[in-house]
């Protein structure tokens, strides 16, 4: 093992270059392996992904072109103690998110109490008036949440983003583990890793538990995909397959006798729970974007009359808006009465004049993000941007300050990746997946570790050249 001390927190090595206890078993195995054999295995992993078709489509490239998300075979390892703490923090946060959504679409106590500004709801497209006064089946808004965590020190995990709409990437969590187990079976006899494989079963159970109260017998669950050209199509098919649910497109669905029904070879059959991977805007052309062909005309009426569960509920996007993110500490405290266990990354809301001034004065040291953006598009990373890029962004900021938030450039933790020249540290984040049902909050031990493959890069998004790693939670 090369032992290079690094400035930021490294997941594998401590400041003196010694292997951290969490990685001890893995590293002793790794050191015993022939480097040439490991290099061959590394190449094999890519072929494995191609053959199984675990690809994603990149928008803007050749239509339908499929790419692989690069896979790095060095796992990211989390100890059982670290995981327990994360779990508590995530649970608290997700409970608060659901309470917040319930409140926003009903009495808005948090606004009345003065802890949350009304202006963030006004003119916010993610806030859906159609949801006001309506309670989804079981009172659940965010059936599936992905919480993006970053780490800056031994005890310092922070939430970078709450993905409350349709978080993706869980199929990579599962396939990365499959790949590791197929490539290095003996490794799993030397290290006790908490299993993730039952996620689809947990998802199916959790979704079924959210079925409308009028459902009799086993609920029919379907996954709604925009189709094979969607960037996450592989995942949609994968999850439907693993859950034994139908994978439907908008054209398969129709409202019949007050129910949403899918066209089967035997005629139309009602759907009880729709796990939709289609954005709110496209869900119902009668209610939202009239040009949408991805959704189901009339589904919102069925929804509001209790005929179907939509997961996640329409209108949850308001909770993962980046401007609202900055209020999460207040939101957690307001609804749980507890101090947040997981911290937020300090955030300047550019809509506020003093914050904007600070951001403009310190642009070269900050990361600036669009309030509604995702996937790493439209963001500025101050320290790595040219003077010209900074100037262009300054203009954008002045023109529409309320469209941006800014955060300090964090010293994100690194985790080594496998390169031809040996191990090399790269920045990582972690997205655990959280399931919410009336039966409780269920967090699968692990998640998706995204890794920036370029040296020094802080951008881990797959659409921006990031890769993934298997994420291990050790068992006690």
């Amino acid at each position, binding site marked *: 093992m090369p032992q290079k001390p690094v400035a930021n927190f490294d997941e594998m090595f401590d400041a003196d270059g010694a292997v951290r206890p969490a990685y001890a078993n893995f590293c002793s195995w790794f050191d015993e392996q022939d480097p040439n054999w490991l290099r061959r295995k590394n190449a094999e992993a890519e072929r494995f992904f*191609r*053959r*199984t*078709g675990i690809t994603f489509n990149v928008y803007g490239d050749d239509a339908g072109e499929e790419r692989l998300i690069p896979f790095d075979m060095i796992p990211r390892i989390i100890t059982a103690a670290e995981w327990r703490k994360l779990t508590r923090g995530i649970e608290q946060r997700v409970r608060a998110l659901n309470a917040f959504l319930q409140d926003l679409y009903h009495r808005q106590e948090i606004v009345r109490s003065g802890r949350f500004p009304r202006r963030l709801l006004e003119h916010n497209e993610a806030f859906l008036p159609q949801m006001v006064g309506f309670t989804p089946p079981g009172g659940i808004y965010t059936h599936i949440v992905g919480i993006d965590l970053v780490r800056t020190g031994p005890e310092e995990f922070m939430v970078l983003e709450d993905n409350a709409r349709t978080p993706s990437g869980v199929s990579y969590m599962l396939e990365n583990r499959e790949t590791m187990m197929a490539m290095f079976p003996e490794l799993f006899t030397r290290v006790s890793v908490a299993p993730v494989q039952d996620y689809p079963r947990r998802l199916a159970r959790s979704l079924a538990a959210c079925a409308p109260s009028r459902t009799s017998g086993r609920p029919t669950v379907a996954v709604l995909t925009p*189709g*094979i050209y969607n960037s996450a*199509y592989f995942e949609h*098919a*994968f999850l*439907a*397959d693993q859950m034994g*649910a*139908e*994978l*439907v*497109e908008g*054209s*398969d669905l*129709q409202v019949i006798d007050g129910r949403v029904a*899918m*066209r*089967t*070879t*035997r*005629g139309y059959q009602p759907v009880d729970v729709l796990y939709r991977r289609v954005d709110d805007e496209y869900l119902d052309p009668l209610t939202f974007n009239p040009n949408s062909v991805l959704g189901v005309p009339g589904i919102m009426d069925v929804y509001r009359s209790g005929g179907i569960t939509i997961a996640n509920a329409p209108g949850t996007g308001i909770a993962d808006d980046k401007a609202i993110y900055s209020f999460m500490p207040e939101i957690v405290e307001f609804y749980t009465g507890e101090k947040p266990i997981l911290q937020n990354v300090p955030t300047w809301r550019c809509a506020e004049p003093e914050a904007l001034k600070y951001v403009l004065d310190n642009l070269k040291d900050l990361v600036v993000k669009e309030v509604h953006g995702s996937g790493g598009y439209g963001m500025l990373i101050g320290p790595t941007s040219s003077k010209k890029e900074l100037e262009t962004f300054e203009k954008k900021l002045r023109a529409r300050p309320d469209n941006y938030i800014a955060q300090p450039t964090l010293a994100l933790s690194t985790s080594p990746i496998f390169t031809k020249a040996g191990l090399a540290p790269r920045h990582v984040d972690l997205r655990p997946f959280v399931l919410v049902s009336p039966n409780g909050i269920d967090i699968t031990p692990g998640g998706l570790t995204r890794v920036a493959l370029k040296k020094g890069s802080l951008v881990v998004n797959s659409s921006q050249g990031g890769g993934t790693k298997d994420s291990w939670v050790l068992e006690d």
Partner: protein
Amino acid sequence: MLGRTANGVFWMFRYLERAENIARLLDAGFRLALTRGPGEASVEWQSVLTTIGQNSEYRARHDDYQGQSVTNWILRDKDNPGSVLNMIEMARSNARAVRTALTREVWEATNESWMVLRELLARPVRASTLGEVLTAVRRQATLVRGAMDGTMLRNEIFNFARIGTFIERADSTARIIDVKYYVLLPSVSLVGSSLDNAQWEMVLRSVSGERAYRWLHSGAMDARGIASFLILDERFPRSLASCYNKVRSNMVGLAREYGHESHAHELLRNTGTRLHSANIDDIIEQGLHQFIGDFIAENRKVAAAIATDYRFTG
């Protein structure tokens, strides 16, 4: 299952079968062209194009029937929506769309076929590599079929896949007979002429039936025997009768699973009865060409009725 999924599975297997059948036909055409002068070769290539219904599209872009240009047109030309490469891409794209209906092994075999053939067909195919490419097409289709046979539940999904396969195969065999019907007519054949022998070989080869036929007839060939073999011999897996046995047994599977028959079952019964009650002398007497033309039309109707009865599209 979803109507769209049934449609996707049905066509996925039609496309795969079509790619494979075209490969066989090309292989047979290539052999015949090799052993004949350029004039006859050109006639043969034209007949291959006619069989797969691509002659006029080909003529719109080419002045003559050079082996190189015909094979590349059929295998990989971007302007040809019916190219083998496009069939494989559509089969794979359908497989992606119905991913949840397939086992992992069937999906991977299909995906791998696409990767292998896309690579092989990335550059123009020369006479020296044509054999290898055609073998690869057949082998990949065989892999998918094998994965299917070994891993798929025998349910409606399997039924739709098999019905697609055999509707397509019957269509392909019938088209081959349709284009070559004149060499299968006893009245015009000069017994034992080398032209007839070569043509008969070509027809048998294009359905990979030369070995089976020789085995059944101890090497003796005649037009009537070959026609009977291709149309009526239930033991030969590419004969019309055999294909329809398979279509029927899978339709019976559907009826059992759904608890009732559909309009398609009725149509199928008529076509099946006609095939099974026929003997080759009657067929030839009443007109081989007419018989085959009727069969192709009926086969198409059966496919259309299945699509309607099982709600393939909205």
